[in-house]
C-alpha cells in the first residue's frame, strides 16, 4: 500500500498549460512589430517614451502592491502591456514626464485602486490617455512627421476632416505601413493587423469584438462619409486597428458573453464613427472604448447565453 500521501482533490485532474503569463507574453509578442515600427519611424524619441512608460508601469505596480501588502505580481507581465499600450497612445513629440504620469495613473488609479488584475472596469492605458489629453491637450495632439527631426504635421484623419486645410492626404501606402503622423504605436495599420492575427491564432482574443468594431466603422463611413476612399482612410489611419485588436479586447473591461462582445464591438464602432464624423476631437477610438467599458457589466448581465436545453420562449 502506498502511504497516505496521495493527493485527493476534486476533478478535473488535468489542467491546460495555458497561464496568465503566457497570455500576456502573447500580447507583448503581438505588440512587438508595431513597437519596432514606432522606433523605426520616430527614432530615439519613441524608444525613450516606450521605455519610460513600461518601466513606470512596472515600478508603480510593484510599489502599490508592496504598500498594500499584497503579493507582488509584476512578473505576470500585465503591467508591461499597460505601459506599452500607453506609450502607443502618445505622440512622439511628448516630453519624458508624459508617459511617466500616464503609466503611474493607469496602474495606480485605474487598475490597482479597483482591485488589480481583472478588476479594472476601464482599460487602464486608455483611461490614462484620456486623463493626459484632458490635462495637456496641446502636448497630446502635437503630431510630428516620422523621421529624426520633429516636424509638425497633421494626422490623415485631421486632414480628411478638413482641420488642416493646406495639407494633402498622405498616400494610402504610407498610412498602411505607418509612415504618417500620429500616436507612437497606431501609425502602422499592417503591423497592428499582423499582431491582431497572431492573437486570434493563439486564441488570446476572438473575432467578435475586433471584427464587429471595424466592420461597423467601415459600414458607417461608407454610408455617412461618402465613399470608399474615405472609408479606407478611416479604417487604416488613426487608432482603429490598435483599439479594435488591443484595447477593446481588454479582458477585464469588455464583456465575456458572446452576444455582449458583439454588441460591445458594434457600440464601439458606432460611437467612434459618430465622434469622427460629428465630434470636435480626433479621439473617436479612445472615447468609444471607454464609454463602452462603462456599459460592459450591463451587457454581461443582459446577454446571458441560452443554456443548453433551456426551453425556448415563444414569441
Amino acid at each position, binding site marked *: 500500500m502506498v502511504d*497516505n500521501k496521495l493527493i*485527493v482533490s476534486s476533478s478535473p485532474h488535468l*489542467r491546460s498549460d*495555458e497561464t496568465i503569463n503566457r497570455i500576456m507574453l502573447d500580447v507583448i509578442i503581438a505588440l512587438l512589430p508595431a513597437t519596432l515600427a514606432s522606433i523605426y519611424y520616430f527614432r530615439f524619441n519613441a524608444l525613450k517614451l516606450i521605455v519610460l512608460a513600461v518601466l513606470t508601469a512596472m515600478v508603480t505596480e510593484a510599489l502599490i502592491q508592496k504598500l498594500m501588502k499584497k503579493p507582488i505580481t509584476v512578473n505576470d507581465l500585465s503591467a508591461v502591456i499597460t505601459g506599452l499600450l500607453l506609450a502607443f497612445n502618445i505622440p512622439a513629440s511628448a516630453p519624458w514626464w508624459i508617459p511617466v504620469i500616464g503609466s503611474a495613473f493607469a496602474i495606480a488609479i485605474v487598475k490597482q485602486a479597483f482591485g488589480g488584475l481583472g478588476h479594472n472596469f476601464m482599460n487602464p492605458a486608455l483611461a490614462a490617455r484620456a486623463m493626459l489629453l484632458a490635462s495637456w491637450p496641446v502636448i497630446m495632439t502635437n503630431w510630428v512627421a516620422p523621421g529624426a527631426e520633429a516636424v509638425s504635421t497633421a494626422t490623415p484623419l485631421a486632414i480628411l476632416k478638413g482641420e488642416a486645410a493646406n495639407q494633402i492626404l498622405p498616400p494610402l501606402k504610407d498610412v498602411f505601413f505607418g509612415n504618417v503622423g500620429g500616436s507612437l504605436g497606431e501609425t502602422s495599420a499592417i503591423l497592428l493587423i499582423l499582431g491582431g492575427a497572431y492573437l486570434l491564432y493563439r486564441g488570446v482574443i476572438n473575432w467578435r469584438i475586433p471584427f464587429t468594431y471595424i466592420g461597423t466603422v467601415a459600414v458607417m463611413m461608407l454610408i455617412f462619409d461618402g465613399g470608399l476612399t474615405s472609408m479606407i482612410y478611416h479604417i487604416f489611419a488613426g487608432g482603429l486597428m490598435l483599439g479594435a485588436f488591443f484595447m477593446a479586447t481588454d479582458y477585464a473591461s469588455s464583456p465575456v458573453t458572446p452576444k455582449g462582445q458583439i454588441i460591445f464591438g458594434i457600440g464601439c464602432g458606432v460611437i467612434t464613427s459618430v465622434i469622427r464624423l460629428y465630434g470636435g476631437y480626433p479621439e473617436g477610438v479612445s472615447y468609444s472604448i471607454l464609454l463602452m467599458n462603462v456599459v460592459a457589466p450591463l451587457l454581461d448581465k443582459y446577454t*446571458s*447565453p441560452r*443554456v*443548453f436545453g433551456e426551453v425556448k420562449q415563444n414569441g
Partner: protein
Amino acid sequence: MKLKNLTFKGGVHPPHFKEYTEKIPLEKAKEPQTVIIPLAQHIGAPCEPIVKVGDRVKIGQKIGEPKAFVSAPIHSSIAGIVKKIVPYTSPIGTQVLSVVIESDGSNEVDENVKPKGDLESLTKEEILNIIKEAGITGLGGAGFPTHVKLSPPPDKKIDTIILNGAECEPYLTSDHRLMLENPEKVVFGLKAIMKAVGVNKGFIGIENNKPDAIEVMQNAVKNEPNIEVATLVTKYPQGDEKRLINAVTGREVPAGGLPMDVGVIVNNVGTAAAIADAIQTGMPLIQRIVTITGSAINEPKNLIVKIGTPFIEVIKQCGGYKGKPGKIIMGGPMMGIAQFTDEVPVIKGTSGILVLNEKEAKISEPKQCIRCGKCVDICPVNLQPLFISQFALKSMYDEAEYYHALDCIECGSCSFICPSKRPLLQSIRVAKRELISRRKKR
C-alpha cells in the same frame, strides 16, 4: 461510406495521452486471491447480501439482491468462501457494505450461467430480464442500472439507440480496445438493446481519433441496414450523453430532462458487450476492461479485471508504480475520482485506473480571475462559470441559481481551460450541493 464529423458547440481539447495503451491488446488479469465486492456499485439503492460468512460461492452466483427498482444485483466474480461482510471503502469515496470472498482456486462456475438462446427467439421482456438478472449497469462511469434505462415510461416514444464509443476522456482506451477486438459483441449488444426497446435505428458514435475502431466497427455493421457508425469530432466532453445526442441527431435534451425526452437512449459500448455476454454465455457482469495508465505506472495496460480486485493487485500486474504516485484516479482525468488508497476494489464503473506522478498531481495555486471569458466560450451547456463560481465562493447561492448553476454537467472543461487555474467546477459543485439540499428542505 458516410464520414461526417459530428459534434456539439463548446468543449475543450485536452491532450489525449492515449498513446500509453491504445496499441496494447486486451489481456486477462491474474485471478485475484481475494475480492472485495461492494453491494452498491451503481446509482440507486444498494443490494442486500444473500450469502453468509462461511458460504461457498461460485463464479457468477448472485450474492446481492436489489430491494428497489433502480438497482442491479451483484454477483461473485470468483469461486471461494465468503470471509467477511463488512463496510469497506469503495472507490466512490464512501463506506459500502461489501462481501469479501477468498478464492479456493476451483474456478467453478454457477449452474445458472448458461446461454439464453437466440436473439431472434427472445422476447423484449426476456431480454430486459436477462439484462436485469446479469446486474448490468452503465460501464461508462456513472453506472446507472441498464434495465431501468431500457424501460422508459410508455409515454416516452424511443426511436433511436446510440452506443457511446466516443471515449473522450484522455488516457482511457478500454472502449477503444473493446471495439477493435470484439466488434461483433458490441453489435450484438446493440441489436439486443434495439430489440428490447423496440427501436430500429441504432448508431455507434466514435471520435475520429480512433480511425481504426471506426473502420472495424463500420465493417462489423456492413450487413446491418439499421445501424450506422457516427464519426465524431475529437473533443471533450463528446461522450456526455446529451452532447452525443446533440451531435448525432441534432436533438437537444431539455434542461433537467433525460435523453428519453427526445426519444433517445444512450448506452456505452462496454455495456452493449456485457449484454452480449449475458445473452450468449449467460455470464453476469463480473468483470470489465480497465485501462491502467499514467506516467506513474511502469507498464500501462488494458486488462480484463474481475470485479472486486483491489487496485493495488491490478497495478502490480502493470509493473507497479514508477516512482512515487502522486494521485490515483478511478476513471479519466477530467471526471474521475481521486482515491485515498490503492486498496479499493475495481467496481462495475471502473473504466480506468490512472496514476499521476507527484508533479502532475500538484494543484496549482489559483490566481485572480482575469475575465478572459474562455470558460464562457467553451462551456458545453452555455453557462458562465466565472460568475457562478464567484457567487459560490461568496455563498451567494440565489445568484448562482439565477446563473443556472444547477444545469452544470460537471464536465470540468472550465477548470481545465482557466489560465488563472481557478477552482471553477469545484466551487460550482458546492453551489449545486447547497441548492439541491435547499430544494429538498422545502
